[in-house]
C-alpha cells in the first residue's frame, strides 16, 4: 500500500481513535517507519486528539499528590539504601 492510499483510506483517524485492528495498526506502523510524511500525518492527528483530551483536563483532589510524593520518596530511599 502506498502513502496516498493510507492517507485516503481513513485508517489514520481510526488508528488514532484506537479503533484500527491489530493487523491494520501493524501495517500502518510499518509504513510510518518507511515514509516520514505518513508518520507526520499520524502525529498531527494524534496531537489534535491530545488537544481534545487536554480540553477535558480536570484538577484532581489535592491529597493524591501528597500521597504519591510520599510513596515515591519511600521507594527512592529503599533503592539508595
Amino acid at each position, binding site marked *: 500500500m502506498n502513502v496516498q492510499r493510507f492517507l485516503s483510506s*481513513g485508517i489514520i*483517524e*481510526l488508528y*488514532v*481513535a*484506537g*479503533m484500527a485492528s491489530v493487523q491494520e495498526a501493524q501495517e500502518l506502523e510499518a509504513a510510518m517507519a518507511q515514509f516520514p510524511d505518513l508518520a507526520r500525518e499520524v502525529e498531527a*492527528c*494524534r496531537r*489534535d*486528539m*491530545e*488537544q*481534545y*483530551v*487536554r*480540553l*477535558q*483536563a*480536570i*484538577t*484532581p*483532589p489535592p491529597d*493524591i*499528590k501528597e*500521597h*504519591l*510524593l510520599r*510513596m*515515591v*520518596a519511600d*521507594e*527512592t530511599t529503599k*533503592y539508595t539504601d
Partner: protein
Amino acid sequence: MPKNLTHIFIVESDFTYTEAELVQGLKARNQRVFSYLYDHYSPALYGVALKILNDENAAGDTLQEVFLKIWRNIDRYNEEKGRLFTWMLNIARNTAIDMLRSKSHRLEQKIQDVGDDVHLYTGHLTVYQSTDHLGLSKVLEKLNKEQRIIIDLAYYKGCTQEEIATILNIPLGTVKTRTRLAMIRLRNLLKAL
C-alpha cells in the same frame, strides 16, 4: 460562567522544563521533576481517568497508579517512538480501561456511562474544576451527539468496532465511516478554536 474558572489550575512555580529535561530528570529519579510533572500533567490524566471510569474515587486511585507506573517505568520510555505526553496518556487510558474491565462493567454499563458523561459537559462541569471548559463547550456544541459518543467509545472506553455497532445500533460497515467523519469534524473544530 465566571472567567477565572479557566485558570483554577495554578502551577507551583514559573520554572519550566523541556520534555527532554523532564525525561532526563525522571530517569535520574529526581523527585522535584516528578512533582513538576504531576503539577503539569495530572489534570489531563485525571480527566482521562474520570471520563473512562465515571467515578471520582476510582479515577483518583487510577491517577495514583498511573503516576507510579510513570515513575517506575520511565526507563522503558523511548522518545524515538513518541512524545512523553503520548506515552503517559496511553498508560492512563490502559490503566483506567483495565480498571473498568476489572469492575466487570458490561456493555450496557458503557452505554450508561457515556450517557452520564453529559453532566460533565453541562451544569455540573464546574464541580470538577475543568481547566479549560470554555474551549471544550465550543467543540462539543458543534460535534453532534453521535459523533461525540463514537469518539468517546473508541478512544476513552476502548470499544471495538463491533461493540460500537451494537451500542449505536448501526451496521458494522458504517462504524468506520462514521468514526472517520467524527474525527475529521473534531479536528476541524479544534483548529477553529
